[in-house]
């Protein structure tokens, strides 16, 4: 394989380990099949087609690949959920709806390296027995949809898609399906409803686990773009070698996206767990702006619970228990979960001491209030209520008891909803109040308790 040169100013950081992002920002690279073929595209598909489908799934299981979309669920295990007695058609959907605030990685794969995704999808479809697959692309990536359709057409012409792929007897059609601007379509059952042409209302689970009753009530596997891209690399170097990158139970590499108050925001593919929060912020992203101190970090997309600068956490059990600070946290799934947050989508938002916490929380609450699908009571009513309270908070029209009400509303949503959007909209409020209550209360005005305020005319944030 030719040596890789990157565009000037876009070279990977030394701490990176580019696998999925190997071709992103690459000098002389384009999304065409011709270029991809010169760099080994579809060779792993060839290899996969010589294996039993279940053997492919086993490799992915052995590798320990965990979903890169946000939930971090073991991919091979998900593939194995399709009932062995199933006789209905199986579908695979690539979730390219990237909408979690703070996340910007799938965008580049879709625009620049579509064949890596397509190859991953064909291999995955072969493993699970899907003959029809969709790439659900968010509406705001119009160029990506065109690039993907061109790539699919190219792949089909060369026999990597369509009937009797590479003479294996395996058939597969992949179509691009564009969304229309709704975050809830990133939720797998909401996505499925959207693909069925209905309002994207997530389904109750049980019984609508996609692996059992998904698209058209048939077994369906929904995977994130990045997750599917890892599949071919697992086959290329073997599950064991792949699992040796990253850290135990948190194997492989993942793309972290850093934004907010750092000098050099951007995307970085690192071995999971081999880079700490502090290294990420200070070493890779050039640290905070001059004269600024770290205040908070949202480590996994805006749905993840916020961590406060200077906080310490107890991780591990028994003899292995230890106390670490925020900046010591390795960027993996398990440690972040143990610290009361999550790795989520890999979207890291850094907040410095120039920011008003009330303003930050209000911006997030406006997002969730706008994106709530409205299907179930707690999220529908609660997300808008929380937004209205923090609207008043930033406008200087909230009372201290409003913070208690805000917390209570969030806790009445958390765990009570049809889908994880409930947690997604409640956790920011819960965690900001948990970690920064003093700051929030400082923005309130005592004595406003009994006033019923018309929030519509007082909103500081834009009213969407």
């Amino acid at each position, binding site marked *: 394989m030719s040596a890789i040169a990157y565009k000037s100013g876009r070279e990977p950081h030394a701490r990176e380990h580019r696998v999925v992002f190997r071709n992103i920002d690459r000098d002389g690279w384009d999304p065409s099949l011709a270029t991809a073929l010169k760099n080994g595209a579809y060779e792993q598909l060839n290899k996969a087609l010589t294996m039993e489908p279940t053997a492919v799934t086993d490799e992915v299981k052995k590798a320990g690949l965990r979903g890169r979309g946000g939930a971090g669920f073991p991919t091979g295990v998900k593939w194995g959920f399709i009932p062995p007695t199933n006789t209905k058609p199986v579908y695979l959907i690539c979730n390219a709806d990237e909408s979690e605030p703070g996340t910007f990685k799938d965008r580049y794969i879709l625009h620049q390296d579509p064949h890596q995704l397509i190859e991953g999808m064909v291999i995955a479809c072969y493993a699970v027995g899907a003959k029809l697959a969709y790439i659900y692309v968010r509406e705001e990536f119009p160029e990506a949809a065109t690039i993907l359709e061109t790539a699919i057409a190219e792949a089909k012409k060369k026999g990597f898609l369509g009937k009797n792929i590479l003479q294996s007897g395996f058939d597969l059609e992949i179509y691009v399906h564009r969304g229309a601007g709704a975050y809830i379509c990133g939720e797998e059952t909401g996505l499925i409803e959207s693909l069925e042409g209905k309002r994207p209302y997530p389904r*109750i689970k049980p*019984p609508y686990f996609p692996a059992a009753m998904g698209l058209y009530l048939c077994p369906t596997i929904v995977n994130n773009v990045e997750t599917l891209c890892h599949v071919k690399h697992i086959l290329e170097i073997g599950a064991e070698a792949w699992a040796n990158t990253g850290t135990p139970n948190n194997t492989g590499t993942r793309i972290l996206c850093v934004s907010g108050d750092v000098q050099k925001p951007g995307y970085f593919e690192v071995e999971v767990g081999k880079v700490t929060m502090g290294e990420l912020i200070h070493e890779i992203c050039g640290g905070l702006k001059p004269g600024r101190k770290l205040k908070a970090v949202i480590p996994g997309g805006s749905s993840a619970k916020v961590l406060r600068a200077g906080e310490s956490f107890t991780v591990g059990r028994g003899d292995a228990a230890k106390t670490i600070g925020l900046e010591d946290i390795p960027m993996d799934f398990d440690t972040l979960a143990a610290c009361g947050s999550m790795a989520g989508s890999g979207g890291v938002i850094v907040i410095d001491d120039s920011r008003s916490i009330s303003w930050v929380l209000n911006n997030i609450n406006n997002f969730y209030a706008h994106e709530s699908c*409205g299907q*179930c*009571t707690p999220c529908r009513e609660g997300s808008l209520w929380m937004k209205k309270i923090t609207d008043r908070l930033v406008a200087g029209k909230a009372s201290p008891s409003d913070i208690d009400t805000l917390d209570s509303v969030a806790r009445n949503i958390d765990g009570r909803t049809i889908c994880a959007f409930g947690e997604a909209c409640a956790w920011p409020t819960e965690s900001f109040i948990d970690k920064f209550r003093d700051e929030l209360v400082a923005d309130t005005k005592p004595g406003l308790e009994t006033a019923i305020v018309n929030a519509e005319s007082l909103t500081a944030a834009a009213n969407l």
Partner: protein
Amino acid sequence: MSEVKPDLIDVQIDGEWHSFPKGTRMIEACRQAGVEVPHYCYHPKLSSPGNCRMCLVEMGTPPRPAPGAEAPAPDEHGHLPISWMPRPVIACANTISPNMGIRTTGPLTEGCRQGVMELLLANHPLDCPICDQAGECSLQEFSVEHGRGESRFREQKVKKPKNVPVGPRVRLDDERCIMCSRCIRFCDEIADDPVLGFTDRGSHTTLSVYPGHELANNYSLNTVDICPVGALTSNDFRFQMRVWFMKETSTIDVNCGTGCNVTVFSREGKIYRVTPRQNNAVNSDWMPDSHRLNFHWIHSDARLTDPLIKDGANHRLATWSEALSYSAAKLGELSGDQIALVASARMTNEELLIVKRLATMLGVGFLDTVPRVGEADGYLISADRNPNTLGVKLVLGLDDPGAKLADLKAGIQSGKIKGLIALQENLVDDAGFSAELLGRLDFLLTTYPLANPTADAAHVVLPSAGWAEKSGTMLNVTGRLQRLNRAIDGPGQTLESWEFVRDLIQALGGGNGIYAATDLFSALTQEVPAFAGLTWGMIGDQGIPLVDTGVTIPLLEREKERIAQGIVVG
């Protein structure tokens, strides 16, 4: 040979163990155990989206032993300990599992309910004083039972359209809507008329019809019944009467042979509303709009209220005894074969029995009823628009009701028939008897609830009770025996038909021993083989299958399929 028993599963509900068949929903298991789980969006006849979250309960299962550890031992009843889950689950869509525990009380469940109530009320308008649903509103009910008791909501509520005419019979107040989607599911799944939907999203979600389209199908008012709040209201009933003032009477619809079970809501002798009553062997939870609204005529000014005797060109008021003795005298002038009796398949079995006695006593030459046939609608409306055709066949012994009417007309025309008793039928409008033909009769006695052309032509007119004004039994198209229960009194001097037919028999010199409708029922059990061995009490509110006609009700058949597929509970 032993019966095949369903798989039974042990479930602990609020500390007590019960057994239920496999596949039972948690909410149904609780209900059968006598514990009502509050809910809005769940309905046993519709699919379950699980969106209101009011039915959240605490749930537990046997704990999974840690690797290497021993499994816990069952107690003396075979029950394993229960490990309670911190996350609540909805009871409506989840089925029970072996050794499951359910807590419908306790801090978690009660906290969930309080939370959901507060959130539902956050944007709900304070419409109670003008909302029809007051008194039968789930939001009110659960607010009292499960709510916080005070509101912490200090914001501006979301504004939505009020008083929207979504259809000719249904009105929508969007702000009251709690987006449970029952109405949408009913229209999609039962009425096959998917005209309702949600537009916009989030808290601004609004129940809508497409501009220029309407919720107009003949089952639209069922959405008003199932709407848990006052979002969908009936135009007919809007602002008419508070529900707590009304008396509820269970009875049967008589607009066709299906015999939908209904509840009549009345106050001080006036009917304000009719709603369907559940009967899973007849009409499920539904009824057609056309049948439901067909009660206003009961309070029409055109109601006959007193016996009338023809005097020259007009009719004069008479007392019952005068009218009946006059009728007896006039009938006495004729021989039996000169008299015809047309009864009605809208009469109860009890009325038909006493009519049979009258016919036998007179030795009438013709005995028939008026057929009423329309088009079946494929849901609940039968082609037979008479409610008791089967009763006519069994009690009057007519094989082919209506078959003799042509000959009867000929008989009147030829002068062979000189006397005609038309009971509860308007022969001019409904059987093609012209006023001129009726004019040929020496004596015409007619009974009917409303003034009508047949009455105009009659020598004696008697006011008869409407369906809501009498008690008795009828047989529907499937052969089910169902009870009508009198909800209100007829106007003026109106009597139930069986009463004055009995009195007419008496006036003709016959004996009786009939004092109440139940006496007639007892007579039925002795004189009509199909009724042998029955008692009035056996019929109950749901009726009993008496004869197997082989006729099925299309809506119920479709419902059975959906139950079999597990989509609905039934």
